[in-house]
Structure formats: C-alpha cells, structure tokens
C-alpha cells in the first residue's frame, strides 16, 4: 500500500509545524467573526488530521474546550468556510468515496490559498475518479496561473464539464483585456461553447422533468374526479376537499406514529396511503348515500350541493385542526435529490410522486377494466335502468364507485402533502385545474385524463420561463377554451350516434 503510506508521511511532514497548536479551539472561541474567517481560511490551506474532531463539532455549532462544550454562534459565511475546511481535511481520508465528495465540494469552494495543497494532493491521488474531480477543482484555480500552458490545460479541462460555474469562469476569462495569450483565448471560446451546450441539455431535461412532475400532480389531483365526474356524472365540487382530507389523514398518521412508533416514523407516508384511501372513501360513500344519490341525472344540482358540502368540510377541518396549516414533514428518503448533471438535480419526492401517479393510474385501469366491480360501474354509468334489470345492484355500485373516486383523491392528498402546504384551503387551489384536466381529456376517458394532465404540466413549464407563471396560466386557460371549441368532447372522444 505505497499510496497510503505516502499520504501518511506527507501529512506528517506537512503538519509538523502545526502539530504544536493544541489551542485551535481556544483561538477560535476567542476570535471575532472576521478573525474566525481568517482562521478557517488558514486551516483550509493547511489541513491537519488533528483538527478532524474540532471541525466536526464546529459543524454542529459546538466547540469543546478543556472538556467543556460551548455553543458557537455561526453565520452562513462561517458555515461555508467550515465546509471548505472539512473538504480539505477529507482529501486526506483513506476512503476514496469521501475524497471524491471532498473534491467535488472543492470544485465549488476552493480558494487560491489552497492551490499548493491541492497540487500536492493531485500528484499523489491514485483513484481515477477522485483524480479527475480534483484536477477540475484545481483547474478552476489555475485559470489565473501565470504560465499560459497551465492556463490552456485548465481551460480545456473546464470545457469537458457541464458545470454552470465553469461557464461563469470562462466568461470572466473571455472578458476583454483579461486573457492575453491568443491560444488560451481560442481554447476558452471552444470550451465555453462546449459548456453552454451541456448546460442547455441539462436545462431542457430539467424543464421536461418539471413538466412531468407538475403533470403527475395534476393527474393525482384529477384522477378521482375522472371517476366521480367522468363516470358518475357528478360535478363533484367537494373533490378538492377529498384531497385535503387525504392530506390531513397523512398528518394524523404522522402524529400518531410519532407518538406511538417513533422508530418507524420514516415510513409514515406508506401507512398513510391506505388510511387516507379508506378515510376519504368512507366519507365519500356517506356523502353519496345521504346527498348525491338524490341528484343523479341533475348535474348542475350536484354542482351546487357538492359545493355546499365542500364549504362545510373546510369549516369542519378549520374547527378541528385550526385555521393554521399543519406540519407534514418529508421523511429523509423523500428529502433531497439525485444529482444527474452538474446543473440538474431531481428531487426524490417528485420522482416518487411521478412513479406513484403512474401506479395509481394502472391500478385504477385494472380495477375498472378487469374486475367485476369495474364491469358493474361501467354498466351502470352507461345504462342505469338496463343494468338494474340485469341484477346489478345500482345503489351499491354507485356508492362504491363514488367511494373509489374519493379514495383515489385521498391518495392524491397524501402525495400533495409531500410537496406543499397542508391546510383547510388545500383543495380549493386544485379544483379548477382538476376539472380542466378531466374536461380536456374527454369525460370518462382515463387515458385522456393522463394525456391532458401531462400535456398541461409540460405546456405550463415550457411557457413559464418565457412569459411568467401568471400569463402562462392565463394563456393555457385560453387555449383550453379554444380547444374545447374544436373538440367539445375532449382529446379522447367516443364517437357515436347522439342519443336524445
């Protein structure tokens, strides 16, 4: 293991003069913020394994002096510097993974003072990944090197990254009067073009993803409505409140699990799914039996009655849970995101929601097309009297279908609770969008709703950067109104003899 040995020797050599400084913590505590910053910059340029403990506890905002733990008041600037020191330290670690992460951090935060140290580390780096990451970090600093050859190499290296920071650095280099060497200048231009192309790819992918994500949210919000409105013909204005109740179920599950099974709290959204489904389905069935069943075939009346229901549900939740939004936290596995490209991070919660939306669609499709219940639902919605004559218990089927629609809305509510607010007004902000999705997709058409949701999501996200969120939304509303002119039955319309 020559490299490990090398590193150790090197470290020892490097740090010999500093080893005596046992009073780092005292120094830090005694310093004012400006001096603290200076200290941290020095430490970053000359990392010392002896300081690992110190830095780790500093990151937590604490310092131990003479066995006594003290709280340090940090601000964002100091935290940034501490992270940089940490990365410097970690370059000395034996674990390549740790070194890689450190090198990546240094690409963003390294300062010219660290140049010498990084140079040394690079020379000794055996791991390929770490080596290339580190050389990039170094290249950022070498752009101002006095040797044109070094600058040229650095510029070329930067061209291979898709890092947004590289773009800024190259642009700075290309500013008039900065780079004297013609060769470096040309190379910088090529590199900049390369970087820009890569950034554009990242941006496009990002836009596509955010469109998909918005689409999946619209879909989850609208899917239940596609059943209650699309199949049963009930203009369910209380649909938004079913989403809201689903989200509140999530909140209650989270609360209960925190109290009784705190060890499994990470998985509360999974428990919340069935709970939300059955709670909202149950409420939906009660509503169907008490109010809606008297109103079949009178769609405009269902609109008014369900609007009344929605007002009462909102106020009920306000009285029970308070007008304030409630706290629904993302569990760790739904926090953060995966870095796909230097300028593209896909948040986990959004990825999970897209997958979840598709799952729900598939399950709904299976339920409607492959089960007895689905057959009954379709029969009743197409010809109620005929179905009744064939022995289909229409009342029960209506109730179950409405329950199903409400339950799916409840599932949507669980997903919505992971990306936004949970408050009594949650449903109100989704109801108009949901109706537009169902109408645009073609009433009663599951596939249509899916297409419409994703179409609207992506269109929204393409328009937003161009003309802003508000105008984008207005434009889309206008387009939908025009589209409905052309195809009053929506995207997926069943043609047929019109029955009067």
């Amino acid at each position, binding site marked *: 293991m020559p490299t490990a040995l090398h590193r150790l020797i090197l470290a020892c050599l490097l740090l010999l003069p500093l080893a005596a400084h046992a009073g780092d913590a005292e120094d830090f505590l005694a310093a004012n913020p400006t001096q603290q910053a200076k200290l941290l910059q020095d430490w970053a340029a000359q990392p010392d394994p002896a300081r690992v403990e110190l830095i780790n506890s500093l990151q937590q905002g604490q310092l131990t002096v003479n066995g006594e733990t003290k709280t340090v008041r940090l601000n964002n600037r100091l935290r940034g510097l501490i992270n940089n020191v940490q990365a410097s330290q970690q370059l000395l670690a034996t674990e390549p993974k740790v070194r890689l992460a450190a090198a990546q951090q240094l690409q963003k935060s390294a300062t010219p003072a660290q140049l010498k140290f990084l140079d040394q580390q690079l020379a000794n780096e055996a791991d390929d990944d770490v080596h290339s990451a580190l050389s990039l970090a170094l290249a950022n600093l070498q752009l101002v090197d006095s040797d044109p050859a070094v600058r040229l190499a650095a510029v070329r290296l930067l061209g291979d990254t898709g890092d947004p920071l590289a773009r800024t650095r190259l642009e700075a280099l290309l500013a008039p009067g900065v780079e004297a060497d013609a060769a470096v200048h040309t190379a910088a231009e090529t590199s900049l073009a390369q970087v820009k192309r890569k950034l554009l790819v990242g941006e496009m992918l990002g836009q596509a993803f955010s469109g998909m994500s918005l689409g999946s949210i619209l879909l989850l919000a609208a899917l239940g409505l596609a059943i209650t409105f699309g199949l049963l013909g009930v203009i369910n204005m209380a649909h938004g409140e079913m989403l809201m109740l689903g989200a509140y179920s999530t909140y209650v599950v989270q609360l209960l699990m925190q109290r009784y099974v705190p060890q499994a709290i990470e998985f509360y959204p999974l428990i919340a799914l069935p709970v939300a489904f059955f709670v909202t389905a149950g409420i939906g069935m009660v509503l169907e039996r008490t109010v809606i069943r008297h109103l079949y075939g009178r769609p405009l009346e269902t609109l008014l009655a369900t609007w*009344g229901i929605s007002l009462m549900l909102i106020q009920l939740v306000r009285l029970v849970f308070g007008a304030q939004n409630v706290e629904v936290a993302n569990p760790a596995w739904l926090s953060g995101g995966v870095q796909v490209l230097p300028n593209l991070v896909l948040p986990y919660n959004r990825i999970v929601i897209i997958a979840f939306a598709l799952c729900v669609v598939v399950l709904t499709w299976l339920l409607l097309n492959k089960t007895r219940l689905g057959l009954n639902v379709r029969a009743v919605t197409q010809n109620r009297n005929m179905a009744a004559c064939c022995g289909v218990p229409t009342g029960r089927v209506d109730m179950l279908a409405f329950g199903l629609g409400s339950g799916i809305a409840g599932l949507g509510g669980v997903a919505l609770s992971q990306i936004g607010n949970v408050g009594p007004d949650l449903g109100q902000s989704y109801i108009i969008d949901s109706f537009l999705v169902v109408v645009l997709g073609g009433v009663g058409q599951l596939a249509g709703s899916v297409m419409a949701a994703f179409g609207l999501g992506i269109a929204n996200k393409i328009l937003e950067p161009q003309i802003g969120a508000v105008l984008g939304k207005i434009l889309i509303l206008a387009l939908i109104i025009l589209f409905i002119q052309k195809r*009053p039955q929506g995207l997926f319309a069943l043609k047929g003899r019109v029955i009067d």
Partner: protein
Amino acid sequence: MNQPLMLTAAQKAGPKVTIAVGVVILAVLLALPLLSLLPADSALHVSAYTLTLVGKILCYAIVALALDLVWGYAGMLSLGHGLFFALGGYAMGMYLMRQASGEGLPAFMTFLSWTELPWYWVGTEHFLWALCLVVLAPGLLALAFGFFAFRSRIKGVYFSIMTQALTFAGMLLFFRNETGFGGNNGFTNFRSILGFGITEPGTRAVLFLATVLLLVASLYIGWRLAQSKFGRVLTALRDAENRLMFCGYDPRGFKLFVWVLSAVLCGLAGALYVPQVGIINPSEMSPTNSIEAAVWVALGGRGTLIGPLLGAGVVNGMKSWFTVAFPEYWLFFLGALFIIVTLYLPKGIIGLLKKKGEQ
C-alpha cells in the same frame, strides 16, 4: 311542472297582492335615500352605513336577476358572472381614479414608474366614455366568449366549467400589476364623481336611487322578455334544444342575446356597486363569488323574476348577521343552505310560497 290550477289561482289572487307588496317595498327603497339626508339626530335618520349596505345588496340583487335570465330561463348556469360584474366595476373605477388623480397619473401607475397612460385608459376621464365602457367591456367579452361557446354547442356542465375558468383567468390577469389595473389593491380612495364628493350624503343618495332605478328597469326588461315569444323560445331552448333547431330556430342567436344582456346588466350593477362600497379589486372575480350568486338564485327560485331578488336579499342579510353573531358557523350554514335548497327546494322560496298559497 306548473299546475294549471295553481297558475290560475296565482293569476287571480296574485297581481293585487304582488303589486301592493312591490309598491310598498319600492316606496321604502325610494324613501331610504331621502331619510339619509335628514340631520343625524333625527329619529328617522338613515345612516350612511345602512344606505351603503342596502345599496350593496341591491347591486347583488341585480346580479342575481341577470344570472337568473341565463340560468332560470335559458338553462345555462354561468359560474363566471362575477367577471362581468367586476369589469363594469373596473370601468367605473377607471373614471373615478382619473377623477381622483386629476391631471396626473393614478397613484399606482406612478408607483410602477409608468409615465403615460396605457391605451385602454384613454378617454376614461370622461364620464360618458366610462359609461360606454361599463356596457362595452362586459358586453363585448360576453359576446366573444358566447360566440365561440355557443357555436361549438358547449352547454350544461361544460359551459359552467368554462365560465368558471374564464373568471379565474380574469382574476389572475387582474392580479398582475403589469396589467394596469392596480393589481391586488385594485382601485380605492375615490374622491368625486361628476364633480360631487363621493362621500357627500347627496351623492350617496343619488347613487342609491340610481341602483333602485336600475333594479326596477332590470325587472321590467326581464318581465317583458318573459312575456314575449323570445322568452318562450328560451324556455323551449332550455328543455329541448334539438327540437327547437329542427323547428328552424337558431339557438345560438337567442343564447347570445340573453347572455350578453345578462352580462351588461351585471356590468351596470358593478358600476353602481364600486362608488358605493369604495373599492374594486380582483377578488370580486374569484370563482367563489360567482358560485355564491348561483345560490342566491337557487334559493330564491329560478325561472322567476322575484325569486333571485329575494334570494340575494336573504343570503346577504343573513351573512351580515351571521358573520357578526357566529363567524365560525357561517360557512356551515351557507353549505347547509346549498344542500337543502338543491335537495328539498328545487323551486326555491318562491316555489315554497306558491305551494303554501295554494293549500
């Protein structure tokens, strides 16, 4: 279904009582502004507060009547009438803002660093042009929307959802500051109208009288329409549109006429509402407001002329009382009202009264 028996009974007993009640109410409404001019310590004095409150409810009653023309008679439930109401209000508000700002730009424009008026503000310093806008803005929008909607036979629920989307889009548009209508704040701090101070008791009384007159005029128009063959065509349209087409009537023209008429009435109501309450802002366009208007009509009794007025009065009166007495239960009450009316009172209060009158 209307029972012929009941019809004749109502025809026999109806007019006298109805007219008597109508005359009394009208007399009270006409007396209110005069009483408000009495000195404050007089026993009969009507406060400015009462006058503006009743004036506001009267404006709502006109909206309810206008909505009833399209919903009760022609069977098209609009969930976007708040938009027309607000457009009328904004048109009047533009004039009032110009009056308040004198030669300069309205305050919110200087705040956006605009140096000149946008083209659509041109001429709004003239009261007559503002009046034209009050009619034209909601009228033309209704014409354009109706033209497309009726051409492609959007009806029933689709029509309701589309109108809702329309008013929602309008609300978003007017919330934007760049649109040039004061954004979220809208228009407020009016000073004078036609040179009279907006807070003068005399101005208030005149505005109130104008509202009463508009209400009476709307009632008359509605009554004439309901009596004419046009009214019968609308009813036919509501019940069997296809049959009507095969009789050779083009439903689009009939729908469009009543739709635009209704929008214009709403616009006029909005124009009278704004100087009385002293503010117009985009929340008037929120879909909730328009749905609430549908409940006034449903509660009062759709397809009748008095019903919507009654509904608007009852709901708003209760709202004033409930939000003071039990603010937390107002929404429960309103929600329950929606459900009870649709389940048990399909003909509204008027239907209930007729039934009772018959027994």
